[in-house]
């Protein structure tokens, strides 16, 4: 809706009566604003004025006598025009604008734009980003080792009776990790037991040895899957909670308050959580193993026509005590990994609400990574040792 004519007058109108008109006389350009200029309607484009700012224009003036209501829509339009004039070295006379607009524009241009160093450098090419991530990982490694050392020292103090923490804290964590995790552990280990039974049934049918479902489910659940599933459930449920708890304490300077009193926050906060998980995760692992076997039993008797006693006897024959020890040892290690990851990320937390969220996320990721690495290492070691 732009029309130019030979006298140098051109207009551009929006849908709701707002109008932009430019009139050129010699070296000066008059911008006439009229009607309502608000963000809730389509506004004339600034390019219309910029087109008129040809080389001969040395001076810009405004006429806003017929201007109605206005808001940031007009202000951003004018700010753009002023910038365009500044670039071209055109003198601007704001005398024709309402006083309120002149003030706001003056405020907006009072402090020159800052070139703040160190921002916007986050997006590099893929190689830069991979390199940065790798360097950050290796920078994080000493902190992880230091924390591991602090926990070790804390355990030494515990064994020599010099560590100080409130036993009630440990019992609260034990309740949180143990009884309250039972429902979710039950559901997941039942379903995993069921999946194992079906998986076994399908393969073992080929060799006519479906009775060995019992061996597969019993050894699988007790040795590996019970501990792994429990570890991952606890990582999501408790590891994240630990990181959020300690992270919030970091934000509130509660951890600093411990340090300034000479009380070790590791003794007071990390040790009870570590002990609670190292105690409860193996017990949950044991429980998960039994629930999984129960699921295997139900599937075998109800679907695959194996009698209860056959399945029962086969399970007893397959299960040796060493399988329980393997499962328990894995549960203990995974519990320690989850507590370590949760407390580490919590203690490393920054001082904002956002940082607490990041700490919780990072705790779960770290815990699952550590569990998986530990699971692989232990499986290989136990195989080599023929346990």
């Amino acid at each position: 809706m732009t029309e130019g004519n030979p006298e140098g007058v051109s207009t551009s109108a929006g849908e709701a009566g707002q109008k932009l008109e430019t009139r050129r006389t010699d070296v000066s350009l008059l911008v006439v604003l009229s009607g309502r200029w608000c963000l809730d309607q389509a506004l004339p484009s600034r390019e219309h004025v910029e087109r008129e700012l040809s080389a001969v224009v040395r001076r810009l003036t405004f006429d806003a006598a017929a201007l109605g209501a206005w808001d940031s829509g007009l202000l951003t339009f004018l700010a753009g025009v002023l910038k365009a004039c500044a670039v071209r070295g055109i003198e601007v006379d704001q005398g024709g604008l309402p006083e309120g607009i002149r003030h706001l524009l003056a405020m907006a241009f009072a402090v020159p734009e800052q070139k703040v160093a160190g921002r916007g450098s986050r997006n590099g090419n893929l190689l830069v980003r991979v390199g940065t991530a790798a360097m950050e990982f290796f920078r994080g490694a000493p902190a992880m080792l230091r924390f591991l050392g602090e926990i070790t020292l804390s355990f030494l103090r515990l064994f020599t009776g010099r560590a100080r923490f409130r036993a009630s804290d440990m019992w609260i964590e034990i309740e949180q990790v143990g009884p309250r995790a039972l429902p979710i552990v039950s559901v997941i280990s039942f379903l995993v037991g069921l999946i194992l039974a079906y998986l076994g049934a399908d393969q073992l049918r080929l060799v006519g040895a479906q009775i060995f479902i019992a061996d597969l489910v019993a050894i699988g659940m007790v040795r590996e899957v019970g501990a792994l599933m429990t570890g991952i459930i606890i990582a999501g449920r408790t590891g994240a909670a630990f990181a959020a708890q300690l992270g919030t304490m970091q934000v509130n300077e509660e951890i600093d308050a411990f340090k300034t009193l000479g009380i070790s926050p590791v003794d007071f906060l990390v040790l009870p959580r570590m002990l609670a998980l190292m105690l409860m995760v193996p017990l949950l692992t044991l429980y998960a193993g039994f629930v999984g076997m129960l699921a295997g039993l139900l599937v075998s008797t109800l679907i695959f026509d194996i009698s209860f006693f056959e399945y029962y006897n086969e399970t007893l024959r397959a299960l040796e005590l060493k399988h329980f020890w393997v499962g328990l040892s894995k549960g203990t290690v995974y519990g320690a990994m989850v507590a370590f990851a949760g407390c580490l990320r919590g203690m490393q937390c920054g001082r904002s609400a956002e940082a607490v969220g990041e700490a919780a996320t990072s705790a779960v990721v770290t815990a699952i990574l550590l569990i998986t690495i530990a699971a692989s290492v232990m499986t290989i070691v136990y195989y080599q040792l023929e346990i």
Partner: protein
Amino acid sequence: MTNIPDIEVRDLSMAYGDFVVQRDLNFTVGKGDIFVIMGGNGCGKTTLMRALTGLQQPASGAVFYGGEDFWNVAPEDQTRLKRRLGIMFQGGALWSSLTLAENVALPLAEYAELSPARIAEIVSFKLALVGLAGFEDFYPSELSGGMKKRASLARAMALDPEILIIDEPSSGLDPLTARRLDDLILELRDSLGATIVVISHDLASILAIGSDSIYLDADTHTMIPTGNPRQALASGDPKVRHFLTRGTA
């Protein structure tokens, strides 16, 4: 011992990586002083507090408490020196999982060989001192901002410290509550004879309680010794007067 100042800071510099927050700080705090560390946002007040309390190792220089070099003594000696400090953090930093009584009792149980009954007595007394008698079984989340600060002060005083370090006592408080906290600090100084270091940017509070002060300049990254804040307001360094008059002088 009488001639040794309670706190002496010598050529102290603090930095985050390559960024120097404050350098070449030199000041002493005498017994019974209320020493105000003032300055605008981001000038390094809290960083200095962290260097004074053992939370952040300074880049160089030394902090002496009663003549002992705080950052260069054996760890057990540093812990002993820390026991002489009572610290009130900006947000109170009360342990959120413990009741007020347990918050105040924890330092006592940690260091003093006291029976539980004796500890409970001391805790009640300290809470009464800050006007919180009867709030023993409240959790920090159940208190208002002003009450949290007072409770935090009670915890800072649990071990009868010789030096109280108070970070931003009036931040987040309305003027009247802030004033009452100032009065409380003055009373504690007068009755306990403690040396008090206050970190603040609250003008009313600085002028009301300060007996000696320094100004941390965010532009030059070093301090300006300012003496008594009221005199600094009347005839001090122009930069400090600019700060103390909210930019009108």
